Every structure is written in structure tokens, then in C-alpha cells.
């Protein structure tokens, strides 16, 4: 009897802590894919789901918010989401150019170079969307040690077609999108440190233990992403992703493409994260044969090998997953011409020899045997002025204006703070099978004020990449049009007219000297009294 009462007492003590854990699911996954150019693509995704949670209604922003008790969900991020009533948030910080032709589509679509932030927020009378957008930027810049605070009205747009809500649409308020990108932002350890602190096991256990900054930032391409979405049937989902494309051929001694977890990350998974409901490593097997993978796993499903690392499975930890090509002495790069892996390949350049005008040209190649319709989005800071009347669409030097439709252009508009918003160009391109479409337009380069130049003005200005996106499914369209995701072109570097920064000083010094000389002599002439001094002897 007494025993029972003690147990009941203990149970009562434990109830609040169990209540906290109810409805939070954490799972982690690592996808490894050997690529045809000898590189290895790795994608970590850490997903925390707050079951049944609903984004904050922006109309209730003036009132006291419900208390936030999270067991697995990061409180620092949760506070920001509640404070600014964010329904959906996507932040990516990437370095390098994603090579679509050789690497295919990434597992996470957001691979634009630099920082990209976009958020969907409900409109309300309490605070405007723009005020909350500014607060969100600053809060995230503090959280992730990135210069996101500079994503101001000079870089903010609302391209709703290319960046739709990926979750459900809440009914409580009409939603608005804010999107901004900063192509010159660098990514380094100070961004990874706060990223790891958002994980329930930090970097102590589970897959995150592999994330060694010295190796990740040495990769040919690396990037991290924070994605918060809301789905009506599950709740708020936080997905933290980290992608890196390693080059074992470069880093290994014998120019071989063999890889294992130890050689890629210089770390191993010592123990699994105890709060993870699932933890797995998935290896996507290459199409050609000749490889071997250890440890042997009988579970080959559709060219995938899945290793379950969660504590419930009988997988022995620590373990090393390795893939090697025993018959290959050193890796031979596949000979060109290579057919691109993705159906669309895009090249974007800016030509012109002068510092005042140039030509922006884009060539889009359809590698598939079907016709592809793609949305084309250009978000151009006011550094460049696009001239719409010079827009040309060509195939084999023949003008084909019929392939361009749905053209929308918003010229740069002056903002309240005397700055120009970016211009937005959106169009639909129809690319016939196995052809290359060329699109070009003339641009004018801005003449900036002396004080608007960055410290390294001679380096040039980074322009964000263009975005190609699949169009929303219409009723009569082919089914194949939606099997790809957004494509980002590499960023461009544009050379604007740069002043000689020492010139103002020269001018000031010269004019001051002249002034003193002229003024001084005239003053002297006017005020000096000319007298004859007689020297007494």
C-alpha cells in the first residue's frame, strides 16, 4: 500500500516533464551521394516537429503570448518566430557555385550563393509586415552571426510566384512574402556554431558529431539552411540542413575517389542522439558498377543503402561507412562532352567593356526530349537598370518572341528612406526540346554617390543570381513539368564606375591652398599700412 502511494507520488512528479515531451519529434538524416565527377555530396537534415503547434496570429501581437516550453525545439529560434509572428521562414547561407550539370538537383533547393532569407507573414494592423521583417532580419543576424541586418529595402522584394508557401496557408490573416538576398555574404565557423547550438544534442552525439568546421568549410561547396514551415495536419516543422560537396580526389593522396565518413569529416559518430526518434545514413548508389560499400547492408532499396543509427537498432556505434572502387587505380574524370544531369542548364553573364552600360544575357538549354516551360525571375538591385525595350529572345540567332510570355516588370521604386528598391523581372520561357534559348537585354550601370561605395569598391559589386522555377501545375500541362525545383544561377560581379577615392582630399587640399594664397595676399594688401621708416642714426 505504501509502495503504491510512493509510486503514485513519483508519477505525479514526473507528469509535467512528460507533458513537455509530448508532441515534439526529432529526427535526423544524412544523405551521401557519390557524383560522377568524383565528388561526394552530403546532406544533413535535422527535423524537429512541434506537433499541433500553430504560428502566432499577427493580430494578437499586442497581447500577451502563450508561454513557450520546448524540450527539443530551440527556444532562441522559437522566441524569434513568436515575437514577429512568422508563419514560414527560410534562411540559407551558402558558399560556392552549385554545379547543376554535374551534380544534379540538390536535396535542398536553396543553393543560391551567399545569404538568402525569405519569410511569409500574416498582415495585421498591430505592426506592419515591414516592421516585423526588419526586426526578424536583425534578430536572425544576431542569432547566426551573419550580416542579415543589411538586407534592407534596397534588397527586399515580394516574388510570390517563385517562392510560394511550402506548407499550409493559415486562414487567420492574408499572408505576405518578403524575400532578400545578399550574394557577397561569406559563410564560416561563426555561422556553424549557432547552427549546432539549435540542435537538441548539439554536436556531442548523433549525426551532428560529424560536423567538423575545418572539413566542412574546406569542401568545394558548402551551405546551411534553416527552414520553418507550418503544416496543418502536423504542426510547425523546423528543418535544419547542411549540405557540402566534398572532393576526395583533391584531398586524397592517390587521387582516388574512395571515401569514408572518417576521411570526409575527420570525425566519427561515437554515440547516437538519445532523443532522436530516427537517425539514419542513406547512401545513394552510383549507376555504374565497380564499387564496394562497407559495412554490407542487405537493405538495398531502389539504389539506396540505409543504415539505421538510432539507439533502438542493432547498428554498432562507432562505425565507419566507406565506399571504394577496388579496381580503379586513380580516378579518371569522365571525358567531355558530358550530357548534363538536369533537364535545364542555365548560363548567365554580363558583357560590355564600359563602366556605364552592358548587356545581360542568359542562355537556357533544354536537355530533355520534351518542351519545358519555366518561370524566370530576376531580382536586380538598383545598381543595374534593365531596359525592357531591348529584351530579345533568340534561338540560333533567330528572334523568337513567341517563346516569352507573362512578362512582368517592376522598375526600381524610391523608398521612404531615399533608397531605391530592386527591380523585379518575371517571365515565362518556353524552351523547345534539345535547344538553347538565348535571352539578352541592355543594362545601364548606376553612378553611385561617393559615400555609397563599399570599402573594397574596386572589387566590384555582387549581383544575386537569377532564379528559374517550375510553374504551378495547370490543368492541361504535361506532368513532367514539376519534377524539378528552383534553379539558381551563379552570382555576377559587376564593375561600376568607381571614383579615385583620394581625389576629394586632393581637391580639398588644392582649393584650400589656393584660397589661402589669394585671400592672404589680398588681405595683406588691403590691411597693411605702407609707411616709410626712417632709421635714425
Amino acid at each position, binding site marked *: 500500500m505504501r509502495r503504491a502511494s510512493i509510486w503514485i507520488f513519483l508519477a505525479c512528479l514526473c507528469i509535467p516533464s512528460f507533458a513537455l515531451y509530448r508532441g515534439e519529434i526529432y529526427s535526423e538524416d544524412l544523405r551521401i551521394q557519390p557524383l560522377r565527377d568524383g565528388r561526394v555530396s552530403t546532406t544533413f537534415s535535422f527535423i524537429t516537429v512541434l506537433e499541433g503547434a500553430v504560428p502566432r496570429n499577427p493580430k494578437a501581437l499586442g497581447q500577451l503570448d502563450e508561454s513557450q516550453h520546448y524540450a527539443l525545439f530551440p527556444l532562441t529560434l522559437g522566441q524569434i518566430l513568436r515575437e514577429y509572428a512568422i508563419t514560414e521562414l527560410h534562411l540559407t547561407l551558402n558558399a560556392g557555385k552549385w554545379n547543376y550539370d554535374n551534380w544534379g538537383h540538390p536535396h535542398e533547393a536553396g543553393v543560391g550563393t551567399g545569404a538568402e532569407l525569405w519569410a511569409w507573414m500574416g498582415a495585421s494592423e498591430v505592426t506592419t509586415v515591414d516592421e516585423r521583417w526588419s526586426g526578424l532580419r536583425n534578430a536572425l543576424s*544576431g542569432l547566426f552571426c551573419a*550580416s542579415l541586418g543589411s538586407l534592407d529595402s534596397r534588397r527586399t522584394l515580394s516574388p510570390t510566384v517563385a517562392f510560394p508557401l511550402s506548407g499550409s496557408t493559415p486562414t487567420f490573416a492574408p499572408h505576405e512574402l518578403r524575400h532578400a538576398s545578399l550574394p557577397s555574404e561569406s559563410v564560416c565557423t*561563426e555561422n556553424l556554431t549557432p547552427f549546432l547550438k539549435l540542435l537538441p544534442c548539439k554536436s556531442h552525439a548523433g549525426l551532428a558529431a560529424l560536423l567538423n568546421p*575545418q572539413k566542412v568549410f574546406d569542401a568545394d561547396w558548402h551551405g546551411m539552411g534553416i527552414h520553418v514551415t507550418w503544416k496543418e495536419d502536423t504542426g510547425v516543422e523546423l528543418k535544419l540542413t547542411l549540405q557540402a560537396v566534398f572532393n576526395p580526389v583533391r584531398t586524397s593522396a592517390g587521387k582516388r575517389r574512395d571515401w569514408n565518413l572518417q576521411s570526409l569529416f575527420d570525425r566519427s559518430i561515437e554515440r547516437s542522439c538519445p532523443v532522436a526518434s530516427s537517425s539514419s545514413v542513406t547512401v545513394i548508389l552510383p549507376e555504374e558498377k565497380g564499387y564496394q560499400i562497407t559495412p554490407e547492408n542487405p537493405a538495398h532499396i531502389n539504389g539506396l543503402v540505409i543504415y539505421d543509427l538510432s539507439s533502438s537498432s542493432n547498428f554498432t556505434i562507432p562505425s565507419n561507412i566507406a565506399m571504394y572502387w577496388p579496381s580503379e587505380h586513380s580516378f579518371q574524370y569522365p571525358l567531355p562532352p558530358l550530357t548534363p544531369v538536369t533537364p535545364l542548364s542555365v548560363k548567365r553573364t554580363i558583357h560590355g567593356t564600359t563602366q556605364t552600360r552592358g548587356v545581360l544575357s542568359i542562355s537556357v538549354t533544354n536537355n530533355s526530349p520534351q518542351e519545358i516551360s519555366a518561370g524566370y525571375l530576376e531580382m536586380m538591385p538598383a545598381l543595374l537598370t534593365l531596359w525592357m525595350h531591348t529584351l530579345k529572345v533568340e534561338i540560333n540567332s533567330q528572334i523568337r518572341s513567341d517563346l516569352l510570355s507573362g512578362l512582368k516588370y517592376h522598375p526600381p521604386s524610391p523608398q521612404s528612406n531615399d533608397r531605391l528598391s530592386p527591380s523585379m523581372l518575371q517571365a515565362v520561357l518556353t524552351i523547345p526540346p534539345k535547344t538553347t534559348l538565348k535571352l539578352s537585354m541592355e543594362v545601364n550601370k548606376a553612378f553611385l554617390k561617393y559615400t555609397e561605395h563599399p*570599402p573594397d569598391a574596386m572589387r566590384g559589386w555582387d549581383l544575386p543570381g537569377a532564379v528559374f522555377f517550375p510553374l504551378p501545375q495547370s490543368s492541361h500541362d504535361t506532368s513532367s513539368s514539376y519534377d524539378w525545383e528552383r534553379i539558381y544561377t551563379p552570382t555576377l560581379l559587376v564593375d561600376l564606375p568607381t571614383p579615385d577615392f583620394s581625389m576629394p582630399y586632393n581637391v580639398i587640399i588644392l582649393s584650400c591652398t589656393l584660397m589661402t594664397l589669394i585671400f592672404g595676399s589680398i588681405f595683406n594688401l588691403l590691411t597693411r599700412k605702407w609707411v616709410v621708416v626712417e632709421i635714425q642714426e
Partner: protein
Amino acid sequence: MRFQRLPQACLLLLTCFMAWAVGSSDSTASTGERAADFFGRHDSGSGHTNNWAVLVCASRYWFNYRHMANALGMYRTVKRLGIPDSNIILMLADDVACNARNKFAGSVYAEAGRHLDLYGENIEVDYRGYEVTVENFIRLLTGRVDPSMPRSKRLLTDDRSNIFVYMTGHGGNEFLKFQDQEEISAFDIADAFEQMWQKKRYNEILFMIDTCQANTMYSQSYSPNILATGSSQIDENSYSYENDNDIGVSVIDSYTHYVLKFMEGINKTSQTSMQDLFDSYDPVKIYSHPGIRSDLFRRPLDKTLITDFFGGVAQAEVFPLQDIVGSSNHHDNGPSAPTTRKPDTPSVPVVLSTTVISLPRLTGETHDWDNWWKEVRKWTSIFVVGCLVSWISFVR
């Protein structure tokens, strides 16, 4: 059978313990002192309760690798000596760790052998790249920032904060260049410090600067409690210490190298004084004449610990009641002190003034009543525990 007498023994022990506790509680007069002795500061009279560090690398570009390494070396030192990341504002004007020219991605080294990675795996750079400007630096010091500025980018100091300000970059006579674009002058820094003093944003400042003609940078300061030191005197350059052949550029400046070398021997409980650090300066090794300015500083340098600026304070502060009643400014160390604030500006923190308001309730007759109530509670709890023990023994 053997344990049948155990409850009784327990009861006896408990009674003995209670008797001892009652007896010892009579000496309440000394508890306050003992608590103050246990929790209080054992420093050299600095009077600070928190430590902050502002570390600025003002130069951009890869060839200024050594300036980044200077600032990061200081970052590692203050972090090792106990200042948390939340109290360190690190400003790096360029990203050398993940620079395409850096062969060792994600690492910054400050010595030719590349033994110690200064970037590490846990680093928070608060201002980086284009954000490192003169405006942002002065806004940070004086606290004039946008309301939406995150906490990690603010200097949340008070009049009990000791601040270590370290700056490095390219400079000249009374100026330091930021990103090769703009300059901060010695007058700007002096005025910013004065504004901080008037806003009660610091208790003491250690200003350290490593640049050419560095000693001119603190020549204009006029606010109290500033201890300043620089790497080289007027018309004198500061030189780099050594190159690393794999990195390809100089990795650290000479002055900072010797300061960091001295700091290697310091730990959190070290009693080494600032005078010892200044005595370790060797102009022959440093290739320049480091300067010290202590005329604004009120404490003797040999009584000023290194850890007063480089270490984090971990002690709590115990205020005896009578001190609060007769509260006065903690800066009032007698009329002779040149740093004394005006007496009509009490600097007692807000928390303390609430205690002052609640004081009358504790004094007078209510004091006796409180003591009586304490006794009642004590004996009731003893009675309840005794009942429980006896109940358990009877049930057995």
C-alpha cells in the same frame, strides 16, 4: 532484529543536531561577515562586478591576416580567462578563416608552426565584414543603437563593468584606419569614452592598441579610470612578428605576440598585476617602444590584477544592510580621489534602492517578531520530523 533500535538512534542524533544548530545560531552576528567573505570579491579593490571585452580588427584584405590573428588571439585569451561569449564583442573586418586563399579552411593561426587554431569550433563574431565601421564601433561603445539590434551586438555594460578594449589595424598619428576607407581619431575615442563615463557605462577601461604610432591613440583621453597601453610611440612603426610559409603572409604582430605570450602564464586565479605585464615589455624584442598611460587610472598598477580586465568575475556580491542604509557612491573614495563623481548623483543600482525601501519593515519591533516567527517555524519543523521518525519506528 539488529536494526530495531535504529529509529531511536536516529531520533537521538537528530535531537543532538538540533541542539547544536540552536546553539550555533546564536552567533548570527558573524554570518553576514562569513557570507560576505565566502561570496564577496577578493580582488584588488576594483569594484567591478562584470567584465566585458571589445576586440576590434579594423583591417580588411587577406594580407592583413595578422590583424585578424591579433584580435582572435585576444579573443581566445579572454575566453580562456572566463569572459563568456555573450560579454565579448568581436569585430572582424574580413573573413580570413574561410577565405579562398586560406589553405587551412576554417582555421586561423598566430604562429609559424601552426600548432594552435585560434578560430576553433566555437566562435561568435558579432560584427563582420562591412559592418565593421567607425559609426558602428562608436554606437556600440556609447549604446546608441537601433531598438531591434540583437543583444549579441550590444555592449550591455553598467557602472560596475570593467571593459577591455583592444584595437588593431593600420594607423598613424592619432588615427586608426577602418577597412582602408575611413578613420577613427584619438579624439573620437576619447569623446566616446567620456560619453560612456557620463552614461555610467563603465567602471574601468583597459585600452590596448596595436598599430603604428599607437601611443598617440590614447593621448587625447580625459575620462577617469582609463588605463591605456599601446604598441609604439609617435613616429614609430609596429612590426609583424613572423611569417608562415604555408599561409604565405605574416601571422601576428610583434607587440600582440609578446602580450599573448605573457598571457599564456596567466590563469583565472592568477595574482599577476598589470605592472608585471608592463614590465615584461621589451622594446628590443618588440622593435618599438610600447607606451603606458596610467594618469587617469586611480589604482596602483602593481595592485591591479590582469584578471580585473582579462578575466570574468564569478563572485556574487553581498551588501551588508548598514552599508545600504548609509549608501554612497562606490566611486567616492574620499575627496582626494580625482575620479570622484558629484555626490548628488547616487549610483546605487535600482535593485538596491528597492531594498532600501523595504528596510523599515525589518527594523524596530518587527525585527523581534520576525525572530520569534523563525523560532516557531524551526521548532515546528523539528516536531514534524520527529513525529515522522517515531511513526516509522512504531509501524515497524
